[in-house]
Protein backbone atom coordinates (compact mmCIF):
# COMPACT_ATOMS: atom_id res chain seq x y z
CA UNK A 1 0.00 0.00 0.00
CA UNK A 2 2.82 2.37 0.87
CA UNK A 3 6.32 2.13 -0.56
CA UNK A 4 9.28 4.33 0.31
CA UNK A 5 12.40 4.11 -1.81
CA UNK A 6 15.68 5.88 -1.03
CA UNK A 7 13.90 8.54 0.95
CA UNK A 8 16.08 11.28 2.44
CA UNK A 9 15.02 14.19 4.58
CA UNK A 10 17.66 16.84 5.00
CA UNK A 11 17.38 19.96 7.18
CA UNK A 12 19.67 22.92 6.82
CA UNK A 13 20.76 23.99 10.27
CA UNK A 14 23.13 26.95 10.35
CA UNK A 15 24.24 26.14 6.82
CA UNK A 16 25.05 22.54 7.70
CA UNK A 17 23.12 19.63 6.33
CA UNK A 18 21.43 17.43 8.86
CA UNK A 19 20.03 14.09 7.74
CA UNK A 20 16.78 13.45 9.59
CA UNK A 21 16.22 10.45 7.33
CA UNK A 22 18.88 8.66 5.34
CA UNK A 23 18.08 6.31 2.49
CA UNK A 24 14.88 4.86 3.89
CA UNK A 25 13.40 1.89 2.06
CA UNK A 26 10.19 0.57 3.49
CA UNK A 27 7.01 -1.11 2.46
CA UNK A 28 3.81 -1.12 4.44
CA UNK A 29 1.12 -3.60 3.43
CA UNK A 30 -2.58 -3.27 3.89
CA UNK A 31 -3.82 -4.55 7.25
CA UNK A 32 -0.37 -4.47 8.83
CA UNK A 33 0.30 -3.13 12.30
CA UNK A 34 3.77 -1.64 12.11
CA UNK A 35 5.63 -0.06 15.00
CA UNK A 36 8.54 2.27 14.38
CA UNK A 37 10.87 2.13 17.36
CA UNK A 38 13.76 4.34 18.27
CA UNK A 39 15.14 6.89 20.69
CA UNK A 40 14.12 10.52 20.40
CA UNK A 41 15.77 12.29 17.50
CA UNK A 42 16.20 9.11 15.46
CA UNK A 43 13.83 10.38 12.76
CA UNK A 44 10.90 8.08 13.50
CA UNK A 45 8.40 10.94 13.71
CA UNK A 46 9.78 12.50 10.56
CA UNK A 47 9.31 9.18 8.80
CA UNK A 48 5.73 8.94 9.98
CA UNK A 49 5.01 12.53 8.89
CA UNK A 50 6.33 11.72 5.43
CA UNK A 51 4.23 8.55 5.23
CA UNK A 52 1.22 10.63 6.33
CA UNK A 53 1.97 13.44 3.84
CA UNK A 54 2.37 16.01 6.59
CA UNK A 55 5.92 16.56 5.40
CA UNK A 56 7.72 16.07 2.12
CA UNK A 57 10.92 14.10 1.54
CA UNK A 58 13.97 15.99 0.29
CA UNK A 59 14.65 13.17 -2.16
CA UNK A 60 13.50 9.66 -2.96
CA UNK A 61 10.08 8.36 -3.92
CA UNK A 62 6.95 7.71 -1.96
CA UNK A 63 4.29 5.56 -3.56
CA UNK A 64 0.78 5.28 -2.17
CA UNK A 65 -1.27 2.62 -3.95
CA UNK A 66 1.46 2.68 -6.60
CA UNK A 67 1.00 6.41 -7.21
CA UNK A 68 4.03 8.68 -6.94
CA UNK A 69 3.12 11.16 -4.22
CA UNK A 70 5.98 13.54 -4.91
CA UNK A 71 4.28 14.55 -8.15
CA UNK A 72 0.92 15.53 -6.60
CA UNK A 73 -0.21 19.12 -6.17
CA UNK A 74 -1.54 20.68 -2.97
CA UNK A 75 -5.17 19.85 -3.74
CA UNK A 76 -4.44 16.18 -4.37
CA UNK A 77 -2.20 15.91 -1.30
CA UNK A 78 -4.84 17.57 0.86
CA UNK A 79 -7.43 15.16 -0.44
CA UNK A 80 -5.24 12.20 0.50
CA UNK A 81 -4.68 13.63 4.00
CA UNK A 82 -8.41 14.04 4.27
CA UNK A 83 -9.54 10.66 3.00
CA UNK A 84 -6.58 8.29 3.04
CA UNK A 85 -4.86 8.95 6.36
CA UNK A 86 -6.03 9.47 9.92
CA UNK A 87 -3.62 11.04 12.39
CA UNK A 88 -3.19 10.57 16.11
CA UNK A 89 -0.60 12.82 17.75
CA UNK A 90 1.22 12.73 21.06
CA UNK A 91 0.01 16.29 21.76
CA UNK A 92 -3.54 15.34 20.64
CA UNK A 93 -3.63 18.49 18.44
CA UNK A 94 -7.26 19.29 18.99
CA UNK A 95 -8.51 22.82 18.39
CA UNK A 96 -9.36 24.11 21.84
CA UNK A 97 -11.96 26.63 20.80
CA UNK A 98 -14.01 23.98 19.01
CA UNK A 99 -16.24 21.57 20.93
CA UNK A 100 -15.48 17.87 20.99
CA UNK A 101 -18.09 17.18 18.34
CA UNK A 102 -16.82 20.03 16.14
CA UNK A 103 -13.27 18.74 16.45
CA UNK A 104 -14.36 15.28 15.36
CA UNK A 105 -16.33 16.77 12.46
CA UNK A 106 -13.35 18.91 11.35
CA UNK A 107 -12.33 16.62 8.42
CA UNK A 108 -15.81 16.93 6.89
CA UNK A 109 -15.34 20.68 6.33
CA UNK A 110 -12.58 20.04 3.84
CA UNK A 111 -13.89 16.80 2.39
CA UNK A 112 -14.79 16.17 -1.22
CA UNK A 113 -15.79 12.66 -0.23
CA UNK A 114 -19.16 11.26 -1.21
CA UNK A 115 -20.33 10.00 2.13
CA UNK A 116 -22.18 6.68 2.16
CA UNK A 117 -23.09 7.53 5.74
CA UNK A 118 -24.17 10.60 7.65
CA UNK A 119 -20.88 12.01 9.09
CA UNK A 120 -22.56 13.32 12.21
CA UNK A 121 -24.17 9.96 12.94
CA UNK A 122 -20.77 8.34 12.56
CA UNK A 123 -19.21 10.92 14.87
CA UNK A 124 -21.83 10.22 17.52
CA UNK A 125 -21.37 6.46 17.10
CA UNK A 126 -17.59 6.77 17.48
CA UNK A 127 -17.98 8.94 20.57
CA UNK A 128 -20.40 6.42 22.02
CA UNK A 129 -18.00 3.60 21.29
CA UNK A 130 -15.09 5.47 22.94
CA UNK A 131 -17.14 6.53 25.94
CA UNK A 132 -16.98 10.27 25.27
CA UNK A 133 -20.53 10.82 24.03
CA UNK A 134 -21.51 12.91 27.06
CA UNK A 135 -18.54 15.18 26.38
CA UNK A 136 -19.66 16.15 22.88
CA UNK A 137 -20.41 19.76 23.82
CA UNK A 138 -17.34 20.16 26.06
CA UNK A 139 -14.14 21.87 24.99
CA UNK A 140 -10.96 19.76 24.72
CA UNK A 141 -9.06 21.59 27.49
CA UNK A 142 -11.78 20.52 29.94
CA UNK A 143 -11.08 16.85 29.17
CA UNK A 144 -8.53 14.43 30.63
CA UNK A 145 -5.61 13.35 28.45
CA UNK A 146 -7.16 9.95 27.78
CA UNK A 147 -10.44 11.55 26.76
CA UNK A 148 -8.66 14.02 24.49
CA UNK A 149 -6.82 11.18 22.78
CA UNK A 150 -10.13 9.35 22.25
CA UNK A 151 -11.50 12.50 20.62
CA UNK A 152 -8.42 12.57 18.37
CA UNK A 153 -8.95 8.91 17.43
CA UNK A 154 -12.61 9.52 16.65
CA UNK A 155 -11.56 12.47 14.47
CA UNK A 156 -8.97 10.29 12.71
CA UNK A 157 -11.59 7.64 11.96
CA UNK A 158 -14.41 9.90 10.82
CA UNK A 159 -13.59 9.87 7.10
CA UNK A 160 -12.95 6.07 7.15
CA UNK A 161 -9.24 6.33 6.36
CA UNK A 162 -7.20 3.49 4.88
CA UNK A 163 -4.40 3.98 7.37
CA UNK A 164 -4.03 5.23 10.94
CA UNK A 165 -0.80 7.04 11.74
CA UNK A 166 -0.14 7.36 15.45
CA UNK A 167 2.82 9.42 16.68
CA UNK A 168 3.59 8.42 20.29
CA UNK A 169 -0.14 8.30 21.06
CA UNK A 170 0.51 7.27 24.66
CA UNK A 171 3.42 9.65 25.26
CA UNK A 172 1.37 12.17 27.21
CA UNK A 173 -0.74 9.65 29.11
CA UNK A 174 -0.27 7.67 32.31
CA UNK A 175 0.46 3.98 31.82
CA UNK A 176 -3.06 2.73 32.50
CA UNK A 177 -4.71 5.23 30.17
CA UNK A 178 -1.94 4.61 27.66
CA UNK A 179 -2.69 0.92 27.67
CA UNK A 180 -6.40 1.60 27.06
CA UNK A 181 -5.62 3.82 24.09
CA UNK A 182 -3.21 1.23 22.72
CA UNK A 183 -5.81 -1.52 23.10
CA UNK A 184 -8.26 0.64 21.26
CA UNK A 185 -5.85 1.14 18.32
CA UNK A 186 -4.99 -2.58 18.33
CA UNK A 187 -8.70 -3.40 18.20
CA UNK A 188 -9.10 -1.21 15.11
CA UNK A 189 -6.39 -3.27 13.42
CA UNK A 190 -7.63 -6.68 14.51
CA UNK A 191 -11.41 -6.24 14.16
CA UNK A 192 -11.55 -3.85 11.21
CA UNK A 193 -8.35 -4.71 9.44
CA UNK A 194 -7.17 -1.10 9.67
CA UNK A 195 -3.57 -0.53 8.60
CA UNK A 196 -1.70 1.12 11.47
CA UNK A 197 1.71 2.74 11.72
CA UNK A 198 2.66 3.51 15.31
CA UNK A 199 5.67 5.52 16.39
CA UNK A 200 7.03 4.77 19.86
CA UNK A 201 10.21 4.84 21.90
CA UNK A 202 8.87 2.05 24.14
CA UNK A 203 10.47 -1.30 23.16
CA UNK A 204 7.77 -3.25 25.00
CA UNK A 205 4.98 -1.60 23.02
CA UNK A 206 6.87 -2.05 19.77
CA UNK A 207 7.53 -5.70 20.38
CA UNK A 208 3.86 -6.34 21.09
CA UNK A 209 3.06 -5.22 17.56
CA UNK A 210 2.82 -7.51 14.56
CA UNK A 211 5.85 -5.90 12.94
CA UNK A 212 8.42 -3.50 14.25
CA UNK A 213 11.15 -1.47 12.68
CA UNK A 214 14.01 0.02 14.68
CA UNK A 215 15.58 3.31 13.76
CA UNK A 216 18.74 5.08 14.77
CA UNK A 217 20.25 8.33 13.49
CA UNK A 218 17.82 8.57 10.57
CA UNK A 219 18.39 5.01 9.37
CA UNK A 220 16.45 1.79 9.68
CA UNK A 221 18.59 -0.72 11.59
Amino acid at each position, binding site marked *: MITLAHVNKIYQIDGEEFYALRDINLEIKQGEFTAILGPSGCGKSTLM*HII*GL*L*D*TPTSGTLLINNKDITKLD*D*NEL*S*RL*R*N*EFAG*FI*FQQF*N*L*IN*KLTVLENIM*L*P*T*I*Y*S*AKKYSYEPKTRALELMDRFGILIKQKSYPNKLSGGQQQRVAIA*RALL*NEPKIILADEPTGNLDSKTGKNILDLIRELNQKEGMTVVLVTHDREIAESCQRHISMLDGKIV
Partner: protein
Amino acid sequence: MSASYQHAGRQNRLKQHHMGILLSIIKTSLSDFDRNKLRTFLTSLGILIGVSSVILLVSLGVGLKNYITEQFENLGSNILIAMPGQIFGGDRQMTGGNFSGITFTEKDYLAIAKVSGIKAVAPAYVKTVSVSFEGKTEIGSYYGTTAEIFPMRNLEAGYGQIFSAGDVEKRKKIIVVGPKIAEKLFGNMGSFVGKTVKIEDQGFKVSGILKSKGGGGFGGPDFDSFLYVPYKSSPKINQEKKFSVINFQADSETVIDTVKESVTALLERSYDEEDFSVIEQTQIQETVTSIFAILNGVLVAIAAISLIVGGIGIMNIMYITVTERIREIGIRRAMGATRRNILSQFLFEAVFLSFIGGSFGLIVSLVIVFIGSRYFPLAIDLMSVVVALTVSTTIGVVFGVLPARKAALLSPVEAIRYE
Protein backbone atom coordinates in the same frame (compact mmCIF):
# COMPACT_ATOMS: atom_id res chain seq x y z
CA MET B 1 -23.88 9.07 -22.18
CA SER B 2 -21.13 10.91 -24.04
CA ALA B 3 -17.74 11.58 -22.50
CA SER B 4 -18.15 15.34 -22.63
CA TYR B 5 -21.46 15.07 -20.86
CA GLN B 6 -19.85 13.04 -18.13
CA HIS B 7 -17.10 15.61 -17.91
CA ALA B 8 -19.60 18.45 -17.53
CA GLY B 9 -21.37 16.53 -14.79
CA ARG B 10 -18.10 16.04 -12.95
CA GLN B 11 -17.25 19.74 -13.30
CA ASN B 12 -20.63 20.59 -11.86
CA ARG B 13 -20.17 18.27 -8.92
CA LEU B 14 -16.75 19.77 -8.28
CA LYS B 15 -18.23 23.26 -8.33
CA GLN B 16 -20.91 22.25 -5.86
CA HIS B 17 -18.25 20.67 -3.74
CA HIS B 18 -16.18 23.88 -3.68
CA MET B 19 -19.23 25.95 -2.81
CA GLY B 20 -19.97 23.55 0.02
CA ILE B 21 -16.45 23.85 1.40
CA LEU B 22 -16.60 27.64 1.11
CA LEU B 23 -19.88 27.73 3.02
CA SER B 24 -18.46 25.51 5.77
CA ILE B 25 -15.40 27.76 5.96
CA ILE B 26 -17.56 30.87 6.32
CA LYS B 27 -19.62 29.13 8.98
CA THR B 28 -16.40 28.18 10.77
CA SER B 29 -15.16 31.77 10.66
CA LEU B 30 -18.43 33.19 11.93
CA SER B 31 -18.61 30.79 14.87
CA ASP B 32 -14.98 31.64 15.52
CA PHE B 33 -15.89 35.33 15.88
CA ASP B 34 -18.63 34.36 18.25
CA ARG B 35 -16.21 32.38 20.38
CA ASN B 36 -13.49 35.04 20.32
CA LYS B 37 -15.59 38.10 20.98
CA LEU B 38 -12.76 40.03 22.60
CA ARG B 39 -10.37 39.40 19.72
CA THR B 40 -13.05 40.23 17.18
CA PHE B 41 -13.90 43.39 19.09
CA LEU B 42 -10.29 44.55 19.42
CA THR B 43 -9.47 43.93 15.78
CA SER B 44 -12.56 45.78 14.63
CA LEU B 45 -11.90 48.54 17.14
CA GLY B 46 -8.52 49.27 15.56
CA ILE B 47 -10.15 49.72 12.19
CA LEU B 48 -13.05 51.64 13.73
CA ILE B 49 -10.73 54.17 15.36
CA GLY B 50 -8.60 54.53 12.24
CA VAL B 51 -11.61 55.17 10.03
CA SER B 52 -13.55 57.45 12.34
CA SER B 53 -10.63 59.65 13.38
CA VAL B 54 -9.79 60.38 9.76
CA ILE B 55 -13.40 61.11 8.81
CA LEU B 56 -13.94 63.32 11.87
CA LEU B 57 -10.75 65.35 11.52
CA VAL B 58 -11.36 65.99 7.85
CA SER B 59 -15.01 66.85 8.47
CA LEU B 60 -13.89 69.39 11.05
CA GLY B 61 -11.60 71.04 8.50
CA VAL B 62 -14.21 71.01 5.75
CA GLY B 63 -16.89 72.22 8.18
CA LEU B 64 -14.81 75.21 9.23
CA LYS B 65 -14.09 76.12 5.63
CA ASN B 66 -17.77 75.90 4.66
CA TYR B 67 -18.72 77.90 7.71
CA ILE B 68 -16.39 80.76 6.84
CA THR B 69 -17.49 80.85 3.21
CA GLU B 70 -21.11 80.85 4.27
CA GLN B 71 -20.50 83.63 6.78
CA PHE B 72 -18.98 85.83 4.17
CA GLU B 73 -21.63 85.07 1.58
CA ASN B 74 -24.16 86.08 4.19
CA LEU B 75 -22.59 89.50 4.43
CA GLY B 76 -23.77 90.49 0.96
CA SER B 77 -22.14 90.36 -2.44
CA ASN B 78 -19.95 92.80 -4.36
CA ILE B 79 -19.29 94.81 -1.24
CA LEU B 80 -16.37 97.18 -0.84
CA ILE B 81 -15.28 98.98 2.26
CA ALA B 82 -13.41 102.25 2.65
CA MET B 83 -11.50 102.30 5.92
CA PRO B 84 -8.86 104.48 7.49
CA GLY B 85 -5.32 103.11 7.46
CA GLN B 86 -3.55 100.63 5.26
CA ILE B 87 -5.28 97.31 5.49
CA PHE B 88 -3.39 95.28 2.92
CA GLY B 89 0.09 95.68 1.61
CA GLY B 90 2.87 97.71 3.13
CA ASP B 91 4.42 96.20 6.18
CA ARG B 92 1.25 96.14 8.24
CA GLN B 93 -0.81 93.04 8.77
CA MET B 94 -4.51 93.04 8.11
CA THR B 95 -6.34 94.68 10.99
CA GLY B 96 -9.43 96.72 11.52
CA GLY B 97 -7.59 99.35 13.51
CA ASN B 98 -7.82 103.06 12.98
CA PHE B 99 -4.17 103.72 12.28
CA SER B 100 -4.15 106.97 10.45
CA GLY B 101 -6.67 108.62 12.72
CA ILE B 102 -8.64 110.01 9.80
CA THR B 103 -12.38 109.81 9.67
CA PHE B 104 -14.65 110.19 6.68
CA THR B 105 -17.20 112.94 6.38
CA GLU B 106 -20.76 113.21 5.20
CA LYS B 107 -19.38 114.92 2.08
CA ASP B 108 -17.31 111.82 1.27
CA TYR B 109 -20.38 109.65 1.71
CA LEU B 110 -22.51 111.78 -0.60
CA ALA B 111 -19.71 111.92 -3.18
CA ILE B 112 -19.29 108.17 -3.20
CA ALA B 113 -23.04 107.77 -3.61
CA LYS B 114 -22.77 109.62 -6.91
CA VAL B 115 -20.06 107.39 -8.36
CA SER B 116 -21.46 105.40 -11.28
CA GLY B 117 -21.75 101.65 -10.81
CA ILE B 118 -22.57 101.94 -7.12
CA LYS B 119 -25.84 100.47 -5.99
CA ALA B 120 -25.89 101.42 -2.33
CA VAL B 121 -23.75 103.24 0.20
CA ALA B 122 -23.87 102.86 3.96
CA PRO B 123 -21.39 104.88 5.95
CA ALA B 124 -21.06 104.03 9.60
CA TYR B 125 -19.92 105.67 12.73
CA VAL B 126 -18.92 102.91 15.08
CA LYS B 127 -18.42 103.51 18.77
CA THR B 128 -18.46 101.36 21.84
CA VAL B 129 -21.23 102.64 24.12
CA SER B 130 -23.16 101.54 27.14
CA VAL B 131 -26.82 101.00 26.47
CA SER B 132 -29.41 100.72 29.22
CA PHE B 133 -32.96 99.56 29.48
CA GLU B 134 -35.04 99.74 32.67
CA GLY B 135 -31.99 99.88 34.88
CA LYS B 136 -30.11 97.13 32.99
CA THR B 137 -26.88 98.24 31.29
CA GLU B 138 -24.92 96.45 28.58
CA ILE B 139 -21.93 97.35 26.44
CA GLY B 140 -22.76 97.53 22.75
CA SER B 141 -21.51 98.87 19.43
CA TYR B 142 -23.27 102.00 18.34
CA TYR B 143 -23.61 101.93 14.54
CA GLY B 144 -24.72 105.25 13.12
CA THR B 145 -25.61 104.58 9.50
CA THR B 146 -28.11 104.89 6.67
CA ALA B 147 -31.07 102.68 5.83
CA GLU B 148 -29.10 101.14 2.98
CA ILE B 149 -27.06 99.06 5.38
CA PHE B 150 -29.97 96.65 5.78
CA PRO B 151 -30.51 95.48 2.19
CA MET B 152 -26.78 95.65 1.51
CA ARG B 153 -25.88 93.31 4.36
CA ASN B 154 -28.99 91.13 4.01
CA LEU B 155 -30.27 92.23 7.39
CA GLU B 156 -33.97 91.74 8.11
CA ALA B 157 -36.18 92.63 11.02
CA GLY B 158 -37.26 89.70 13.14
CA TYR B 159 -39.58 91.88 15.21
CA GLY B 160 -40.91 95.36 14.39
CA GLN B 161 -39.22 97.02 11.42
CA ILE B 162 -35.96 98.43 10.17
CA PHE B 163 -35.71 102.18 9.73
CA SER B 164 -36.12 103.81 6.31
CA ALA B 165 -34.26 106.50 4.39
CA GLY B 166 -37.12 108.81 5.35
CA ASP B 167 -36.54 108.07 9.04
CA VAL B 168 -32.90 109.09 8.58
CA GLU B 169 -33.89 112.37 6.93
CA LYS B 170 -36.45 113.09 9.63
CA ARG B 171 -33.74 112.48 12.28
CA LYS B 172 -36.03 110.14 14.13
CA LYS B 173 -34.68 108.99 17.47
CA ILE B 174 -35.17 105.34 16.74
CA ILE B 175 -32.96 102.28 16.96
CA VAL B 176 -32.75 98.83 15.35
CA VAL B 177 -31.16 96.37 17.74
CA GLY B 178 -29.03 93.37 16.80
CA PRO B 179 -30.45 90.12 18.21
CA LYS B 180 -27.45 89.31 20.40
CA ILE B 181 -27.47 92.57 22.28
CA ALA B 182 -31.28 92.56 22.28
CA GLU B 183 -31.33 89.23 24.06
CA LYS B 184 -28.98 90.54 26.72
CA LEU B 185 -31.03 93.68 27.21
CA PHE B 186 -34.58 92.41 26.89
CA GLY B 187 -34.45 88.69 27.37
CA ASN B 188 -37.81 87.87 25.80
CA MET B 189 -37.61 90.02 22.70
CA GLY B 190 -40.75 90.76 20.72
CA SER B 191 -42.68 92.82 23.25
CA PHE B 192 -39.97 95.44 23.57
CA VAL B 193 -40.54 96.98 20.16
CA GLY B 194 -41.71 100.54 20.83
CA LYS B 195 -40.02 100.83 24.22
CA THR B 196 -37.13 103.22 24.80
CA VAL B 197 -33.48 102.41 25.41
CA LYS B 198 -30.87 104.92 26.55
CA ILE B 199 -27.46 105.47 24.98
CA GLU B 200 -25.30 108.15 26.63
CA ASP B 201 -28.43 109.74 28.15
CA GLN B 202 -30.19 109.89 24.80
CA GLY B 203 -33.44 108.00 24.46
CA PHE B 204 -34.05 105.89 21.36
CA LYS B 205 -37.32 104.16 20.57
CA VAL B 206 -36.86 100.53 19.55
CA SER B 207 -38.08 100.27 15.97
CA GLY B 208 -37.12 96.68 15.36
CA ILE B 209 -34.97 93.75 16.31
CA LEU B 210 -32.99 92.01 13.59
CA LYS B 211 -33.09 88.36 12.67
CA SER B 212 -29.93 86.59 13.69
CA LYS B 213 -27.19 86.20 11.06
CA GLY B 214 -24.96 84.15 13.25
CA GLY B 215 -21.26 84.65 13.00
CA GLY B 216 -19.07 87.38 14.23
CA GLY B 217 -15.65 85.97 14.81
CA PHE B 218 -13.63 84.44 11.94
CA GLY B 219 -12.90 87.93 10.56
CA GLY B 220 -16.40 89.10 9.68
CA PRO B 221 -18.15 91.90 11.50
CA ASP B 222 -20.65 90.80 14.11
CA PHE B 223 -23.84 92.31 12.77
CA ASP B 224 -25.86 90.67 15.55
CA SER B 225 -24.25 92.85 18.21
CA PHE B 226 -24.74 96.28 16.68
CA LEU B 227 -27.12 99.05 17.71
CA TYR B 228 -28.25 100.62 14.41
CA VAL B 229 -29.22 104.28 14.64
CA PRO B 230 -29.89 106.75 11.76
CA TYR B 231 -26.66 108.72 11.58
CA LYS B 232 -28.41 112.09 11.60
CA SER B 233 -30.39 111.36 14.75
CA SER B 234 -27.69 111.59 17.34
CA PRO B 235 -25.86 114.88 17.15
CA LYS B 236 -24.67 114.49 20.71
CA ILE B 237 -23.00 111.15 20.12
CA ASN B 238 -21.60 111.91 16.69
CA GLN B 239 -21.43 115.66 16.59
CA GLU B 240 -19.38 116.15 13.43
CA LYS B 241 -21.24 113.47 11.47
CA LYS B 242 -18.03 111.61 10.84
CA PHE B 243 -17.73 108.02 9.78
CA SER B 244 -15.21 105.39 10.69
CA VAL B 245 -16.08 103.25 7.71
CA ILE B 246 -18.01 103.51 4.46
CA ASN B 247 -19.61 100.35 3.08
CA PHE B 248 -20.67 100.42 -0.52
CA GLN B 249 -22.01 97.93 -2.97
CA ALA B 250 -21.15 97.70 -6.65
CA ASP B 251 -23.88 97.04 -9.22
CA SER B 252 -22.22 93.83 -10.33
CA GLU B 253 -19.04 91.87 -10.06
CA THR B 254 -17.78 93.22 -13.39
CA VAL B 255 -17.70 96.84 -12.23
CA ILE B 256 -16.05 96.21 -8.86
CA ASP B 257 -12.60 97.17 -10.11
CA THR B 258 -13.76 100.40 -11.79
CA VAL B 259 -15.82 101.36 -8.76
CA LYS B 260 -12.86 100.69 -6.50
CA GLU B 261 -10.62 102.91 -8.65
CA SER B 262 -13.16 105.72 -8.83
CA VAL B 263 -13.74 105.76 -5.07
CA THR B 264 -10.02 105.63 -4.38
CA ALA B 265 -9.43 108.56 -6.73
CA LEU B 266 -12.26 110.44 -5.11
CA LEU B 267 -10.94 109.96 -1.59
CA GLU B 268 -7.37 110.81 -2.65
CA ARG B 269 -8.57 114.33 -3.30
CA SER B 270 -9.22 114.77 0.42
CA TYR B 271 -6.80 112.36 2.07
CA ASP B 272 -3.30 111.09 1.70
CA GLU B 273 -3.30 107.77 -0.14
CA GLU B 274 -1.58 106.08 2.76
CA ASP B 275 -4.20 107.17 5.24
CA PHE B 276 -7.07 105.11 3.92
CA SER B 277 -7.78 101.96 1.97
CA VAL B 278 -10.57 100.66 -0.19
CA ILE B 279 -10.87 96.92 0.07
CA GLU B 280 -13.14 94.28 -1.34
CA GLN B 281 -14.87 92.08 1.12
CA THR B 282 -13.59 89.07 -0.82
CA GLN B 283 -10.05 90.18 0.04
CA ILE B 284 -10.82 89.81 3.72
CA GLN B 285 -12.48 86.51 2.98
CA GLU B 286 -9.45 85.28 1.07
CA THR B 287 -7.13 86.21 3.91
CA VAL B 288 -9.28 84.46 6.47
CA THR B 289 -9.74 81.46 4.21
CA SER B 290 -6.00 81.17 3.67
CA ILE B 291 -5.44 81.14 7.42
CA PHE B 292 -7.97 78.34 7.74
CA ALA B 293 -6.41 76.51 4.81
CA ILE B 294 -3.28 76.17 6.98
CA LEU B 295 -5.39 74.92 9.88
CA ASN B 296 -7.08 72.52 7.47
CA GLY B 297 -3.71 71.26 6.30
CA VAL B 298 -2.74 70.59 9.90
CA LEU B 299 -5.99 68.66 10.44
CA VAL B 300 -5.42 66.57 7.33
CA ALA B 301 -1.87 65.85 8.50
CA ILE B 302 -3.17 64.73 11.90
CA ALA B 303 -5.75 62.60 10.10
CA ALA B 304 -3.04 61.00 7.99
CA ILE B 305 -0.99 60.29 11.12
CA SER B 306 -3.95 58.70 12.86
CA LEU B 307 -4.58 56.61 9.77
CA ILE B 308 -0.98 55.39 9.90
CA VAL B 309 -1.17 54.77 13.65
CA GLY B 310 -4.54 53.03 13.20
CA GLY B 311 -3.06 51.03 10.34
CA ILE B 312 -0.15 49.88 12.48
CA GLY B 313 -2.66 48.92 15.18
CA ILE B 314 -4.65 46.87 12.68
CA MET B 315 -1.42 45.36 11.38
CA ASN B 316 -0.31 44.32 14.85
CA ILE B 317 -3.51 42.74 15.98
CA MET B 318 -4.01 40.94 12.67
CA TYR B 319 -0.45 39.68 12.70
CA ILE B 320 -0.66 38.51 16.31
CA THR B 321 -4.02 36.80 15.95
CA VAL B 322 -2.94 34.98 12.82
CA THR B 323 0.45 34.04 14.24
CA GLU B 324 -1.06 32.53 17.35
CA ARG B 325 -3.27 30.43 15.12
CA ILE B 326 -0.50 28.90 13.02
CA ARG B 327 -0.80 25.64 14.99
CA GLU B 328 -4.51 25.62 14.24
CA ILE B 329 -3.67 26.12 10.57
CA GLY B 330 -1.36 23.09 10.78
CA ILE B 331 -4.07 20.96 12.37
CA ARG B 332 -6.59 21.98 9.73
CA ARG B 333 -4.07 21.20 7.01
CA ALA B 334 -3.46 17.76 8.56
CA MET B 335 -7.21 17.17 8.41
CA GLY B 336 -7.23 17.84 4.68
CA ALA B 337 -7.57 21.62 4.31
CA THR B 338 -5.88 22.87 1.15
CA ARG B 339 -3.79 26.02 1.11
CA ARG B 340 -6.64 27.72 -0.67
CA ASN B 341 -9.08 26.62 2.04
CA ILE B 342 -6.87 28.22 4.68
CA LEU B 343 -6.44 31.40 2.66
CA SER B 344 -10.18 31.64 2.02
CA GLN B 345 -10.86 31.31 5.73
CA PHE B 346 -8.42 34.03 6.73
CA LEU B 347 -9.34 36.27 3.80
CA PHE B 348 -12.99 36.01 4.76
CA GLU B 349 -12.17 36.74 8.39
CA ALA B 350 -10.01 39.74 7.54
CA VAL B 351 -12.53 41.17 5.08
CA PHE B 352 -15.35 40.60 7.53
CA LEU B 353 -13.50 42.23 10.45
CA SER B 354 -12.39 45.15 8.30
CA PHE B 355 -15.90 45.56 6.98
CA ILE B 356 -17.44 45.47 10.46
CA GLY B 357 -14.80 47.84 11.85
CA GLY B 358 -15.05 50.12 8.84
CA SER B 359 -18.84 50.30 8.88
CA PHE B 360 -18.99 50.94 12.60
CA GLY B 361 -16.26 53.56 12.19
CA LEU B 362 -18.37 55.21 9.51
CA ILE B 363 -21.52 55.01 11.64
CA VAL B 364 -19.73 56.39 14.71
CA SER B 365 -18.34 59.32 12.75
CA LEU B 366 -21.69 60.02 11.09
CA VAL B 367 -23.39 60.07 14.49
CA ILE B 368 -20.70 62.34 15.97
CA VAL B 369 -20.91 64.67 12.96
CA PHE B 370 -24.70 64.67 13.16
CA ILE B 371 -24.76 65.53 16.87
CA GLY B 372 -21.63 67.68 16.85
CA SER B 373 -22.73 69.83 13.93
CA ARG B 374 -25.31 71.46 16.18
CA TYR B 375 -22.50 72.98 18.20
CA PHE B 376 -19.65 73.08 15.77
CA PRO B 377 -19.19 73.36 12.02
CA LEU B 378 -18.66 69.78 10.76
CA ALA B 379 -19.19 68.43 7.28
CA ILE B 380 -18.56 64.91 5.96
CA ASP B 381 -16.08 64.83 3.13
CA LEU B 382 -16.80 61.88 0.81
CA MET B 383 -13.17 61.62 -0.26
CA SER B 384 -12.00 61.17 3.33
CA VAL B 385 -14.59 58.41 3.82
CA VAL B 386 -13.38 56.59 0.73
CA VAL B 387 -9.68 56.99 1.61
CA ALA B 388 -10.15 56.02 5.26
CA LEU B 389 -12.19 52.92 4.41
CA THR B 390 -9.92 51.83 1.58
CA VAL B 391 -6.67 52.29 3.49
CA SER B 392 -7.76 50.59 6.71
CA THR B 393 -9.55 47.72 4.97
CA THR B 394 -6.56 47.15 2.73
CA ILE B 395 -4.22 47.08 5.71
CA GLY B 396 -6.60 44.78 7.57
CA VAL B 397 -6.93 42.36 4.68
CA VAL B 398 -3.25 42.37 3.72
CA PHE B 399 -2.03 41.80 7.26
CA GLY B 400 -4.75 39.27 7.95
CA VAL B 401 -3.90 37.23 4.88
CA LEU B 402 -0.10 37.59 4.59
CA PRO B 403 0.81 35.69 7.79
CA ALA B 404 -1.91 33.14 7.03
CA ARG B 405 -0.40 32.64 3.59
CA LYS B 406 3.00 32.19 5.16
CA ALA B 407 1.55 29.59 7.52
CA ALA B 408 -0.32 27.81 4.73
CA LEU B 409 2.91 27.49 2.76
CA LEU B 410 4.58 25.64 5.63
CA SER B 411 4.19 21.89 5.66
CA PRO B 412 1.40 20.86 8.05
CA VAL B 413 3.93 19.50 10.48
CA GLU B 414 5.98 22.69 10.55
CA ALA B 415 2.82 24.69 11.18
CA ILE B 416 1.70 22.39 14.01
CA ARG B 417 5.10 22.69 15.68
CA TYR B 418 5.30 26.47 15.12
CA GLU B 419 6.10 28.33 18.29
